[in-house]
């Protein structure tokens, strides 16, 4: 039971700590794309973390705001809508594998909360429930903007769910399983055998559908500010608004994780298979620690070069020292320790855990890259018009998905 709770809690904490980070990334990224500085003011004794404290300040602000429930809303549904949106966003990650399963005392141990044989169908089923939050919010708010946004959004989510399902089919044909772990293993460790090269059409369709399902630009018509104010959450404020926001970012993280799992080899480390990692665990740990030591030192020295006395004239001057000096010291210590210790000698279990840790880090790097991809696209592309959006979903992506399916089937038959 304890293991079940830990398996649920750890990925949950990772995902929900990524949300403020993503909000920061979105603000800072959009700022650099638009050639401005972005958030850099919020400070705690001069420490600003490059503007990351703004996310923290936002959380404090949102939970201490007045909890407005307007008089004209349908109160039970008005409260139920953000609850459903967040709950649904919280439960999808259950079947995501974070590393290759290991064996402890001869018993298999998987790095996923629940090892279901319906695998990805579970994610699709939960994602299809996301419509309820949007619909109920739009209807219960009793506001024209909300209703329009809710209806538009739900019709859009429904339309792109079919394209998403169809694009998955050809991937499943190649992988031959619904379980995400098997799909990842079947892709192998070499990047040119990953599905984004063997199934490029499916990759394009899935990514597009994932953008539409998360209601993000270029598909963010439900909350097109210029016409619908804020779409289905116009009447929401304080933490209830933040719950929709958190659900959206949780969906972005899940979509990134799915793209990484289905098309980019999931937790596979490029060119290094699980067996290779386990065999070379001692040397690998040595190289990894040394590389981190050097990286910390370089980053610390880079930060220290920014130090200039009297730049702001207050505590903020010393922020780079607060981060830079410990980084350099930690890097120095780590490098020296590793160099003096020499190559590590790991037990079989230790080497398995080492392989799992490296794979976990690779997977997180892939997820972060696709989260950044979502942000990048959002601040690059303009918004679709609604008829274009529905046309793309029904008239382009559906036939493309069917054709891709037929071609995949014929190729598999010919082999």
């Amino acid at each position, binding site marked *: 039971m304890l293991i*079940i709770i830990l398996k*649920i809690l750890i990925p*949950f904490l990772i995902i929900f700590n990524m949300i403020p980070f993503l909000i920061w990334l979105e603000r800072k990224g959009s700022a650099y794309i638009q050639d401005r500085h972005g958030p850099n003011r919020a400070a705690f004794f001069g420490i600003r973390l490059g503007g990351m404290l703004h996310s923290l300040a936002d959380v404090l602000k949102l*939970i*201490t*705001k*007045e*909890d*407005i429930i*307007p*008089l*004209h809303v349908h109160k039970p549904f008005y*409260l139920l809508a*953000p*609850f459903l949106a*967040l*709950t649904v966003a*919280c*439960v999808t990650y*259950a079947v995501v594998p974070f590393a290759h399963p290991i064996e402890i005392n001869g018993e298999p141990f998987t790095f996923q*909360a*629940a090892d*279901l*044989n319906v695998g990805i169908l*579970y994610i699709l089923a939960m994602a299809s429930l996301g419509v309820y939050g949007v619909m109920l919010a739009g209807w219960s708010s009793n*506001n*024209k*903007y909300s*209703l329009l946004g809710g*209806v538009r959004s739900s*019709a859009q989510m*429904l339309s792109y*769910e*079919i394209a998403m*399902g*169809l694009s998955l*089919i*050809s991937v*499943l*044909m190649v992988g*031959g399983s619904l379980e995400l772990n098997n799909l990842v293993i079947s892709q192998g460790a070499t990047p040119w055998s990953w599905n984004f090269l063997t199934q490029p059409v499916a990759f394009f369709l899935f990514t597009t559908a994932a953008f539409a399902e998360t209601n993000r630009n270029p598909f963010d018509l439900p909350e097109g500010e210029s016409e619908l*104010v804020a779409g289905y959450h*116009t*009447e929401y*404020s304080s*933490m*209830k608004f*933040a719950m929709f926001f958190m659900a959206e970012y949780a969906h972005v993280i899940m979509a990134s994780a799915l793209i990484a799992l289905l098309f980019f080899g999931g937790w596979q480390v490029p060119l290094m298979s699980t067996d290779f990692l386990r065999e070379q665990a001692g040397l690998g740990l040595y190289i990894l620690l040394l590389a981190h030591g050097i990286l910390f030192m370089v980053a610390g020295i880079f930060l220290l070069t920014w130090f200039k006395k009297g730049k702001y004239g207050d505590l903020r001057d010393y922020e780079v020292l607060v981060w830079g000096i410990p980084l350099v010291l930690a890097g120095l210590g780590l490098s020296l320790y590793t160099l003096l210790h020499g190559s590590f000698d790991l037990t079989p279990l230790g080497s398995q855990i080492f392989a799992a840790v490296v794979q976990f880090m690779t997977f997180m790097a892939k997820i972060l890259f696709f989260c950044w991809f979502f942000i990048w696209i959002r601040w690059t592309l303009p918004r679709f018009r*609604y*008829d274009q959006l*529905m*046309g793309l979903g029904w*008239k382009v992506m*559906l*036939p493309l998905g*069917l054709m891709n*399916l037929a071609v995949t*089937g014929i190729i*598999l*038959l010919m082999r």
Partner: protein
Amino acid sequence: MISSYVPILVLFVFAGLFAGAFLGISALLGPKKKSHAGDSIYECGPAPVGGARERFSVKFFLVAILFILFDIEVVFLFPWAILFRQFVNEGMGLFVFVEMAVFLVILVLGYIFVWRKRALDWR
């Protein structure tokens, strides 16, 4: 096998508590002053005109119905897709492929009908 579904149940309870806690925190910590402006319908400032309970274009219903039908089609494709390779290895590949092709061609006929009837045009 059933035991592998226990974490899902735990997760549902956990996620529900988490989302409920946020609703509770917001209601507990927020200031209680009653601002009358917050109670009215937001319509960018001016007094709201008419109600929000309007009837909608039938197109949205059509999209929802078509979604159900094509969703069921996709659901049938899932077990087919994961078994396809096994069938190919057993030498039944062509049979199963033709089987699904017949299924899909019949549905594509329906899809063409929908297209020709302009039910997919958003105008």
